[in-house]
């Protein structure tokens, strides 16, 4: 029973880790905005996650790891072989931060629910 209570925070911990990895990738892209021939990096996680949820087997979820991928596409606006678009990176950064904060809030509300049960709703 208590496993059921904590089960969700395990998934959310994975999502948090993916979010931190993505923050790393975006920071790296922003730091290398002026590096010739640099290709932007991203973290693949959500799609794997959705796929395993569709299979409806919760054991699969434990195997999902955030994977760093390289975007090989060309940015036609630049001639130095770098495909970082600073405007999109900034918006990814904002999106990722908000997602992270939302996850932390979810985890906290989950914990406070467990606490509430332990205190018998007092």
């Amino acid at each position, binding site marked *: 029973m208590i496993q059921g209570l904590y089960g969700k925070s395990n998934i959310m911990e994975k999502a948090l880790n993916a979010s931190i990895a993505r923050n790393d990738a975006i920071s*790296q892209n*922003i730091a290398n905005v002026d590096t010739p021939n640099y290709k932007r990096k991203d973290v693949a996680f959500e799609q794997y996650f959705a796929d395993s949820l569709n299979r409806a087997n919760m054991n699969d979820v434990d195997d999902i790891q955030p994977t760093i991928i390289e975007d090989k596409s060309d940015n036609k606006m630049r001639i130095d072989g770098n495909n970082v678009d600073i405007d999109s990176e900034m918006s990814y950064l904002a999106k990722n931060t908000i997602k*992270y904060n939302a996850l932390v809030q979810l985890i906290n509300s989950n914990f406070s629910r467990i606490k509430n049960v332990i205190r018998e709703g007092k």
Partner: protein
Amino acid sequence: MGFFSSLDIGASGLTAQRVRMDIISQNIANVNTTRTEDGTPYRRKDVLFEERTGSFSDVLAAASDKLSNGQGVRVTKIVEDTSEFKKVYDPGHPDADEDGYVNMPNVDVVTEMVNMISASRSYEANVTSINATKSMAMKALEIGK
């Protein structure tokens, strides 16, 4: 994995852009320097950026066919621009040749100003990424409170 690597990456970006800014200032300051230690006019300098990798985790990731996020950016070299000096007619100048022409540095102030704006914008972008990382790290401390 963790917040401190994101902060280090942001800091490496700040350092690289600051070096770039230093070199741009040096170019602008020497826009009229006709005599350097080598006896030639000042040559415009430029910085070369490279993605910084090579930490243990990067090597390990590469060995196991994975990508790693890397360690930010670094300045590999400061190179001299080998384009030709500008010739200006100024017979009264002590460095003028027998025809009255002086070799002036190959610094174009407009180019330097444009590069300066680019460097300061990139610097600001790195500051934003550091601030975002900081706010996420502070939020993490609230877990389980």
